[in-house]
């Protein structure tokens, strides 16, 4: 496969064709922030946090959903992009209810890390008229819609890696939330195998292990990526035999 030559933040690199800009950036030693992307899962380009500027293109593009192109000149950290990310982040905070000091994910939360990185520490928000309640019906796990950033990583982990297709998205606007099976409490979802892959994939504290308290998130977030990478490797071995 022929390599593609491009420049990311001034660093010249060669990346395999078909790779996306987020992956390619890693070759240049650059980490592009993103929430909905998780190695091993399909790309949805939903969160818009990974927007980058490409010289000659009028509007920023999501790095996770843009394939590398020959001679591209990509900038991942411009004042405009920073501003864009900050606004996005504030919106995410404002749509939910994030009290890190009471959250299982505090200290291991991708949203919180982004906020620290981008210097967001205050959010103006109007409390929603109706609060979405926590779903604690599952014997092992809980779901808190007020902390969900709707990245759908859990939906994809469940469908693509576990093959259970338990999770879906329902509702509109502020009321958008996850549903298990056809809208039953999680604990009653027959398709759920209780494997916990969704919980491990969640970037924030929206999915968690029951009985855990502040800052106690234990599930390794790379679980899904590790599993998919391993499967890939093993299937190659099959082919070689």
């Amino acid at each position, binding site marked *: 496969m022929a390599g593609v030559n491009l420049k990311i933040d001034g660093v010249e690199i060669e990346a395999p064709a078909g790779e996306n800009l987020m992956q390619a950036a890693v070759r240049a030693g650059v980490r592009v922030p993103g929430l909905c992307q998780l190695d091993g899962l399909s790309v949805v380009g939903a969160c818009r946090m990974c927007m980058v500027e490409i010289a000659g293109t009028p509007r920023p593009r999501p790095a996770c959903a843009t394939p590398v192109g020959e001679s591209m000149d990509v900038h991942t950290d411009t004042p405009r992009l920073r501003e864009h990310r900050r606004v996005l982040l504030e919106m995410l*905070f404002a749509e939910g209810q*994030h*009290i*890190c*000091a*009471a*959250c299982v994910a505090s200290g291991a939360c991708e949203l*919180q890390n982004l*906020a620290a990185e981008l210097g*967001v*520490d*205050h*959010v*103006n*928000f*109007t*409390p929603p008229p109706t*609060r979405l*309640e*926590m779903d*604690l*019906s599952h014997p092992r796990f*809980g779901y*808190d819609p007020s902390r969900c950033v709707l990245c759908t990583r859990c939906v994809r982990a469940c469908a693509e890696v576990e093959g259970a297709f338990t999770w879906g998205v329902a509702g509109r606007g502020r009321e958008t939330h996850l549903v298990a099976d056809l809208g039953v409490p999680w*604990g009653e979802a027959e398709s759920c195998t209780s494997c916990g892959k969704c919980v491990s994939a969640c970037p924030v504290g929206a999915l968690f292990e*029951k*009985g*855990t*308290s*502040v*800052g*106690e998130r234990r599930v390794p977030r790379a679980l899904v990526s590790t599993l998919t990478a391993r499967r890939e490797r093993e299937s190659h071995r099959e082919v070689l035999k």
Partner: protein
Amino acid sequence: MSRTLLIDPVTRIEGHAKITVRLDDAGAVQDTRFHVVEFRGFEAFCRGRSVYEMPALTARTCGICPVSHVLTGAKAGDAILGVEPPPAARQLRRMMNLGQILQSHALSFFHLSAPDLLLGFDSAPGARNVFGLIDAEPEIARRGIRMRRFGQEVIAALGGRKIHPAWAVPGGVLGNIDPEALERLRTEHETIVHDAKWAWARYGELVDAHPAEVAAFGDFPSLFLGIVSQDGNWEHHDGLLRFIDAEGNRVGEDFPAERYADVIGEVADADTYLKSPYHLGAQGGKAVGPEAPGTYRVGPLARVNLAERMGTPLADAALAEFRGEFGRVPLGSFHYHGARLIEILACVEQLGELLNDPDLGRGPLRAEAGINHLRGVGVSEAPRGTLFHDYRVDEDGRITGVRMIIATGHNNLAMNRTIGQIAEAFVTGPDVAEGVLNRIEAGIRAYDPCLSCSTHAVGQMPLVLRVEGPDGTLLHEVARG
């Protein structure tokens, strides 16, 4: 409603302390009212959340004594799980509570009250603060700072270097004491014992210097409430609750936390936003005064008055002196200061025992269980007094109801009464001198109420005092802060 929420929010009971003094036709004080604004909407805020978050959530809601809320919330959680935390966890929780009482009392006495006591109530307001204190008597300020830091280090050694450690959880605690911090605390301990003894000795002189204030600051009979140990001694975390009357007699049976509502009623007063709890049984015969039957006090003075003994040598010696001078049950709210210093001694001594216990932190720290009860009540002695958390949950452990009684609430009727007394003694007509305002402020401060306005170490409490005529017309208003 739009408000600013920090990612790390702390909501305090905000606002000015508002006091109304009503005069009669002759210009004498007829009635006084103390109004504070309480943070409301807390229950709605918690509904639907997991019981595991409650210690942390309640700590966020009251920024003044978060550690007490964490510990009490965890105890209410224990009750919902139906577990007794392992012995090591209980011991560590007790240790944190001692650290909390110590640091809070050190702040209250040395930073907030010592300027009044030492520099005098009529001294210039600009200097009557912790800086004025540093100028006038650097030693007392220095020791106060050191003692407070020691208490805070105890908390940090357990909960980590966070502002509000959500370290106690339903079933136990999240982590053990940091071994390095433990060593440091052991080394520093002796100095703190010394400071606590010194402060008690110094206090004797201060009391003698203020006879008028000692008499006027809420000197009235009332009941007292607090936790007592099994043998009736001073206690701050585990044990039954007890009421005593102004003579020191037990009122009713000792009761466990979950029975509090059988014993304590609450009147919601239309114009003081704070609910005023009172002792229910007092209505029938045990009335403590025609104006406010069932008025009781909590906090340092209540705990010290309840205790047969403090349980440690230095604190017991101080208690004997205190009682020798003021009687078995000192009633003046001025004595909160003395009680606080006796408690400082007790905390320091008990911490010494814990720090040197070879078994400290040995064994499991957490009992795991599911939701076994749909209601749980936790109680603990916060520095300012008895704190109740009463949670109701559904079968999944989601909060369906929350009720809390905080120390400042318990003391509300008594604070009102105290202000009335001070006004009667010092207000002689519509013109109110600065010194009167200072005394009213100090009268409230004796209770160390958890109003954010009461914790201004520098400068004064934001205070509005209205003097009204018999028909409610405003005669004079003084505001500051």
